[in-house]
């Protein structure tokens, strides 16, 4: 169902020129998906390179009631950029002309299409660091990261995207350009709209520029791999490490199913009888972390670890991390579809969450593996399945729903870092309640009276259920 007319198309061409308005079927099909589920055909794709162009297209869309979907590189796992109601995809991935580091203010000012990893690479030249590190940071854009409030392994020590954004330039759904926040760490002038917009998944406005806070770059890193015969012990050891006065930069866990998959894929000599492998990275001053890594090793041994391996060099550390890196390719070898969840629980509930996941795996007979950022409670239960097998997908959908329920019952959240999008919208009320939804909707209506900004996301629609099958 097309929502645009040829007059609209011509108007877009007048704004962007012909090359940056994509109308061919092959092009529109190429912007119909993300890394989650489903394909939805947009009517047009435009590739803005300036705030002015965005303002013009928003004015047009607002006037005509055409939905607009901001998009980065579409690595989203929750359906954030999917053009579910047709209309215009605003592909900001090619808008990457600005990446300025201001070392004296310890900030970076960036265009929305800049790849996240590039910000950190530039910051490094000044001895600075941009900490948020989603595993897709070499592919994903900062615009997408801001919209989804992405996080990564370093979240444990450094926090997530919202903790580093202090100012934005945006275009409102009605086509007005405005700035939020500024260039200072401290800023309490009025409502904190910056934090409202970050993580709003493109439902309130279009982000056209961001000012990001940078921190001093750590001088050294140390890594340890700790192997546990049983999962509960690993949970206890993690708690002991985190309450010992040491804050690791990363604390990653992989369960037995992951270990087995990796060993079958590329044998690294991991112990297949172990129930958990924990990888801990410390960063900081070399002398300080030298002492701390020894302490981590001691605590884990005392807590009953099967073995502790502290890397002596950065090459050795890279080898240890290899095990974690191989998880993704290893687990999809049996079946091609990967349903990647990011339900998050308070740190203390990790052992209990593992128990619940085990029960869900057995109850629904699904191929469920767990790895993720155990240090901040952000686990990644992944269900490996085949979306062509409809009977199996039915069980997967039920299992996912149970995972969400378990996380919320344990005081956690539906999503730690992937966002709600289309995938988790049906479960929103379970977490925030009817009043919570209502207050959020009022905010949405105030910003976007004509409901054109990224419709179909976050808010539950009556009768909509989680669907992981292609119709």
């Amino acid at each position: 169902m097309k929502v645009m007319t040829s007059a609209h198309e011509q108007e877009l061409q007048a704004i962007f020129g012909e090359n940056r308005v994509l109308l061919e079927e092959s092009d529109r099909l190429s912007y119909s998906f993300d890394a989650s589920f489903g394909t939805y055909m947009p009517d047009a794709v435009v590739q803005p390179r300036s705030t002015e162009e965005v303002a013009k297209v928003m004015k047009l869309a607002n006037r005509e009631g055409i939905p607009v979907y901001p998009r980065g590189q579409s690595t989203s796992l929750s359906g954030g950029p999917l053009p579910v109601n047709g209309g215009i995809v605003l592909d900001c991935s090619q808008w990457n002309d600005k990446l300025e580091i201001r070392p004296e203010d310890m900030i970076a000012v960036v265009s929305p299409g800049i790849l996240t990893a590039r910000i950190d690479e530039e910051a490094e030249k000044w001895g600075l660091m941009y900490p948020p590190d989603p595993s897709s940071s070499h592919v994903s854009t900062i615009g997408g990261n801001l919209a989804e409030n992405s996080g990564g392994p370093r979240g444990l020590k450094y926090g997530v995207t919202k903790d580093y954004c202090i100012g934005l330039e945006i275009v409102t759904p009605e086509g007005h350009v405005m700035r939020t926040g500024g260039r200072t760490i401290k800023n309490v002038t009025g409502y904190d709209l910056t934090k409202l917009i970050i993580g709003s998944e493109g439902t309130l406005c279009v982000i056209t520029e961001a000012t990001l806070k940078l921190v001093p770059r750590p001088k050294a890193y140390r890594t340890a791999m700790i192997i546990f015969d049983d999962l509960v012990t690993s949970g206890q050891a993690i708690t002991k490490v985190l309450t010992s006065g040491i804050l690791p930069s990363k604390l990653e866990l992989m369960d037995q199913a992951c270990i087995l998959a990796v060993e079958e894929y590329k044998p690294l000599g991991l112990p297949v009888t172990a129930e958990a492998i924990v990888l801990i990275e410390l960063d900081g001053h070399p002398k300080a972390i030298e002492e701390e890594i020894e302490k981590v090793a001691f605590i884990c041994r005392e807590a009953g670890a099967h073995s502790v391996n502290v890397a002596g060099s950065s090459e050795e550390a890279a080898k240890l991390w290899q095990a974690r890196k191989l998880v993704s390719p290893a687990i999809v070898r049996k079946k091609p579809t990967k349903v990647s969840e990011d339900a998050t629980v308070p740190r203390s509930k990790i052992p209990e969450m593992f128990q619940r996941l085990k029960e869900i795996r057995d109850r629904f007979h699904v191929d469920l593996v767990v790895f993720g950022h155990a240090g901040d409670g952000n686990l990644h239960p992944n269900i490996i399945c085949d979306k062509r097998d409809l009977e199996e997908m039915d069980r997967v959908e039920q299992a996912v729903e149970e995972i969400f329920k378990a996380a919320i019952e344990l005081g956690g959240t539906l999503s730690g870092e992937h966002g709600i999008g289309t995938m988790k919208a049906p479960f929103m009320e379970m977490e925030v309640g009817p009043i919570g939804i209502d207050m959020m909707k009022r905010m949405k209506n105030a910003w976007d009276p004509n409901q054109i900004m990224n419709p179909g996301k976050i808010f539950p629609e009556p009768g909509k259920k989680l669907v992981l099958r292609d119709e």
Partner: protein
Amino acid sequence: MSEAANRLKKQLHYEKTFDCVQCGYCLPACPTYETMGKETHSPRGRINLVKMVAEGKSSVENMREPIEKCLGCRACQTVCPTNVQYGEILEGAKSVLEDHEKKTKKQQVTEDFIFNGLFPSRKWMNAIGNATWFYQKTGLQAIARKSGMTAMAPLHLDKFEAVLPKVASPFERRNSPRLVKAKRNPKMRVGFVSGCVMDSMFHQTNKNTIELLSRAGAEVVIPKAQTCCGALHAHTGKLEEARQLAKQNIEVFEKENVNYIVNNAGGCGAMLFEYDHLLKDEPDWNRRAEQFSKKSRDVTVVLTELDGLEFRHSMNERVTYQSSCHMTHVQKVTSEPLALLEGIPGITYREMAGYDRCCGSAGIYNIVNYEDSMEILDVKMEKTRRTKADTIVTTNPGCLLQMKLGIQRAGLEKEVRAVHLVDFLMEADPQPKEPRK
């Protein structure tokens, strides 16, 4: 479902498209996504289009441009976290397009000429080689260049013409030896794949390859009945022709009883390396093809294994390396060429940013998609310039010609040269290494 729809799905390797989880990790690795800036020209986008066509949700013609503008460099396969067999999906799509032919006249004529005339026939390649030689020797070239005559040639052949190497005389090429003994205690016997482009346009490089192997301790046989490897055919969807050529080569080299089948062209090497995959559905051939592929080696790998050379001449040059995609991403040969380079006394090695990214040559891509190829090349030349190198070393004839063209486009003819690694090694006066006592 109709039989035709099922056949289409099979030909497009529909089942394999499900291995793609659309994570997008291939986007930064794709040279056409970089220069064209559209998901449509990315590996993830192309796989999605193939899937849509297979499911009947889009037409075959809708995927033509995106598929034809793919370089086939396979860089996406190296970075893919879920091991998608992009090469197979691409070849399947190309063969469907080939069957669905609706080509423009110009392209048809060119492709007919290239595939049914030029590459499979040594006679034709010789004729081309002869003509090129004659053309250069008689001074016609100089006249043609001056008068701009070649600029009128179709398909921008004038641009390539200007960077062609000096071609050996037909007499010299006809009298090439068929067996060259090892210059020191022989450690192995290898067969040499002389290739079609390599043998006519880069005859000297072939001679140097054989010489290096023999000095390093290999006896080299060069079977006369060998033919084109079939790479250019396979990459444009002419799979049946490619299979015929593969079979001929398998038969020829089986008779020679060699340890390795050696080539010096990354693109050909990748095809030879994948004969097993090309012939996997042919029961009479698949085992033979597997044997062949197992023995297939790039010359740099064999020279590294032989470890039989020492270099007498110090080169005193700043060198950078442009790798061949099919050597890197298909044969997975990455360390050997660099190790050989760094073993040359006197050179300063300057790594180029993205040296493992495609230069835009990509078989006949630079002839068929000239403008797109030149955009990729210009990006490459900017990165080359930043290395301040005076020598660009490559390991594949297509890349070598393209880099020469790039040097010309960047106006760097006076400062920079491009050279095949084998020729560069010869310049450093390699001598058989005395065995350690």
